[in-house]
């Protein structure tokens, strides 16, 4: 039997709620391959949210696809097409961002390609996500790819996951099929300890259990996909805890106000609170939280502010302000153990100069040792003492050229993450999370300290840093130049140690 569905029939019934203020936003990562119907699902959500403009609607009306019942439907996936280059290849090669509003909430859909060679794109997408929708085809169930995806989501700190078991229309809307796949999924997610993992039977093409409850799968009593998304709390609401503010820059009013500009990344700060600069250990009291719209009495997670202190304790970009009363302060360290995903097409090179970029600091890496590669199929760690290449997920020991203020990722993700930057090309070659903070050098770092060129204060003062005097701002510039030279020497194949 075949039927042509008229566009008018597909119009969602509810009126758009456009004038309602959006109370919050949720970042949703979608992962799965073209075959799983991911583009169709996203297109369907845009459609159901009435986010289509007339010109997009016209484009959509030109497309047709046929579902399992032989019904002719618009091809929702055509809404989500991307660059001409990848349309030609028929694959998605990069993450794309899309936006829609539904029931007082902004949804930011981060569309990440599913093909296994795109681990890096998925990892970078996951780093922004509050929740991930994993897609699978009901006929095929859990795939190798689903396991890989779950592992990456776990490493990137995503706490909420949904398995959308799609194309139920092609699996005879089978309850047994759904229950079989969802029990496999439960076993997989239990292993990673996600806070919230659910499986939902859907048909993206016909819309069953996307925004509208399926009239066919009456055996399913759980939430629809959209109902579930509505129930997940936004990140802001869940980040109660110790205060963290990485300092971006110092702003002055030309008189006596010296403000520390930054975004509150965790917890909150009030006027009168005692803070500590994690790096120097110096304390001061907040006497002003300033913004162009007037002073505030407190600022919470997510807010960008300028903070005034009662005493001048010498704070600069790269410092992290913590609450003095909080037991957990950022750790000051030169040694970190980390998980990282290699993003660059150029593999890790022992001779290259690398820098570690934290929230606002940029610290030279003295030594980076890959210790193990994670096999995403078996989830086993394979010891490895050499390179990592694009899409590898590795454990690594990192020695820094000077101390940095960081947190363990599981405690505070916002200040427990980093990127690795190639000193010469500037490229972001890896992204990582801090597993633990270590005292002293890694064993391999020690071994490396034989036969190295020592770049010290005396050498630099003669020429390169001759113009710098003794005041603190120049001291920072002195250190910066020293490490730039170090990075260049390292890139040129010279093993160098900076000793200032």
């Amino acid at each position, binding site marked *: 039997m075949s039927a042509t569905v008229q566009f008018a029939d597909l119009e969602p019934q509810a009126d758009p709620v456009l004038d309602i203020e*959006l109370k919050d*936003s949720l970042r949703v990562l979608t992962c799965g391959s073209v075959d799983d119907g991911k583009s169709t699902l996203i297109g369907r959500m845009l459609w159901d949210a009435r986010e289509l403009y007339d010109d997009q609607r016209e484009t959509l009306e030109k497309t047709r696809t046929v579902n399992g019942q032989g019904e002719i439907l618009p091809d929702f996936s055509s809404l989500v097409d991307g660059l001409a280059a990848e349309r030609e290849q028929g694959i998605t090669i990069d993450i794309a961002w899309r936006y829609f509003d539904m029931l007082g909430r902004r949804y930011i859909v981060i569309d990440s390609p599913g093909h296994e060679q795109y681990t890096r794109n998925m990892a970078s997408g996951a*780093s922004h996500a509050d929740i991930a929708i994993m897609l699978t085809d009901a006929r095929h169930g859990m795939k190798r790819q689903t396991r890989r995806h779950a592992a990456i989501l776990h490493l990137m700190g995503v706490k909420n996951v949904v398995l959308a078991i799609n194309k139920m229309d092609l699996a005879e809307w089978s309850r047994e099929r759904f229950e079989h796949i969802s029990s496999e999924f439960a076993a997989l997610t239990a292993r990673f300890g996600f806070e919230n993992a659910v499986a939902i039977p859907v048909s993206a093409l016909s819309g069953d259990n996307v925004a509208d409850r399926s009239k066919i799968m009456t055996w399913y009593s759980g939430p629809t996909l959209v109902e579930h998304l509505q129930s997940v709390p936004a990140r802001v609401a869940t980040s109660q805890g110790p205060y963290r503010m990485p300092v971006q820059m110092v702003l002055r009013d030309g008189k006596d106000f010296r403000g520390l500009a930054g975004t509150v990344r965790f917890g909150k700060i009030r006027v009168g609170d005692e803070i500590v600069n994690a790096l120097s250990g110096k304390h001061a009291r907040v006497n002003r939280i300033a913004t162009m719209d007037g002073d505030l*009495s*407190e600022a919470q997670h997510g*807010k960008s502010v300028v903070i005034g202190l009662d005493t001048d304790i010498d704070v600069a970009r790269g410092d992290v302000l913590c609450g003095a009363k909080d037991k957990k302060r950022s750790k000051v360290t030169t040694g970190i153990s980390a998980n990282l995903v290699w*993003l660059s097409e150029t593999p890790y090179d022992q001779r290259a100069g690398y820098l570690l*970029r934290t929230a606002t600091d940029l610290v030279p890496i003295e030594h980076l040792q890959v210790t193990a590669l994670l096999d995403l199929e078996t989830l086993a760690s394979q010891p490895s003492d050499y390179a990592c290449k694009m899409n590898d997920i590795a454990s690594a020991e990192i020695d820094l050229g000077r101390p940095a203020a960081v947190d363990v990722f599981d405690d505070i993700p*916002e200040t427990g993450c980093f990127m690795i930057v190639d000193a010469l090309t*500037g490229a972001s070659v890896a992204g990582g999370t801090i597993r633990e903070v270590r005292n002293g050098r890694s064993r391999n770092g020690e071994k490396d300290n034989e036969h190295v060129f020592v770049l010290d204060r005396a050498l630099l003062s003669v020429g390169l840093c001759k113009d710098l005097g003794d005041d603190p701002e120049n001291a920072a510039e002195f250190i910066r130049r020293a490490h730039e030279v170090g990075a260049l020497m390292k890139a040129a194949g010279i093993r160098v140690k900076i000793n200032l």
Partner: protein
Amino acid sequence: MSSPLDHLDLLEAESIHIFREAATQFRKPVLLYSIGKDSTVLLHLARKAFWPQTPPFPLLHVDTTWKFRDMISFRDRTVKQFGLELLVHTNQDGLERNINPVDHSPSIYTDTMKTVALKQALDKYGFDGAFGGARRDEEASRAKERVFSFRSSGHRWDPRRQRPEMWHILNGRLGKGETARVFPLSNWTERDVWRYLLREKLEVVPLYMAAERPTIERGGQILMLDDDRMPLRPGEVATKRRVRFRTLGCWPLTAAVESSATTIEEVVEETLNARTSERQGRLIDHDEASAMEKKKQEGYF
């Protein structure tokens, strides 16, 4: 007690964060100011980001000499009001060759007077980071754009060379010959821009509000006659219509919509219920398929 941050508060905070990161990481940044509503929001956020200082970079306006007169007076008023430095650049070579939107195709005109002009200005002053008001919701090729978007020498945009961005970390370290475009409004939608303009009570160019204006109809679009440089074609009659603009650019290339919305509130009301996506109003985009992506690879903003 402070009230919880809503959606617009978070967007604002994110944009401020981006402005500060770029201003500290790039040696010589500049804000590309195009006078429209997105630029108005962009500039307002820049002022917030560096307050109590003024933004530590100049504004650059690439003037094709075909902008609406109301735009130019709004620009000059704004710069004066906030005590900002404004640089205006026009492609002199294009002017001498009389490249204009009346006699030349939109693609030739845009390339010469906008794309080439922008590259000239960036090179002339040696800017290494340029803030722009582009948003990811504008059209498909922008949905994949980064917050820091890198251009190799010659200002070419190569999709394969873009850097992954993770968490809130922005990496602005430049390789040899590279410059960057910075998009603080990446995660804003058109609705957010309007809502924010209303919330912050920001003034916009009067052309966004409906008024009686001299217009003609051409190719199914309504065009406003801002001066007498565009000759009428046979059969075309200048008629007063109540129109406003959804987007502002060079007047012979910017279509108006008939409207009775005379306040920002009314415009927002109409816009939030609009059924046509914003770029429909820009004639240059209809010129060829995948137009924007191609323009971008060639260095258009």
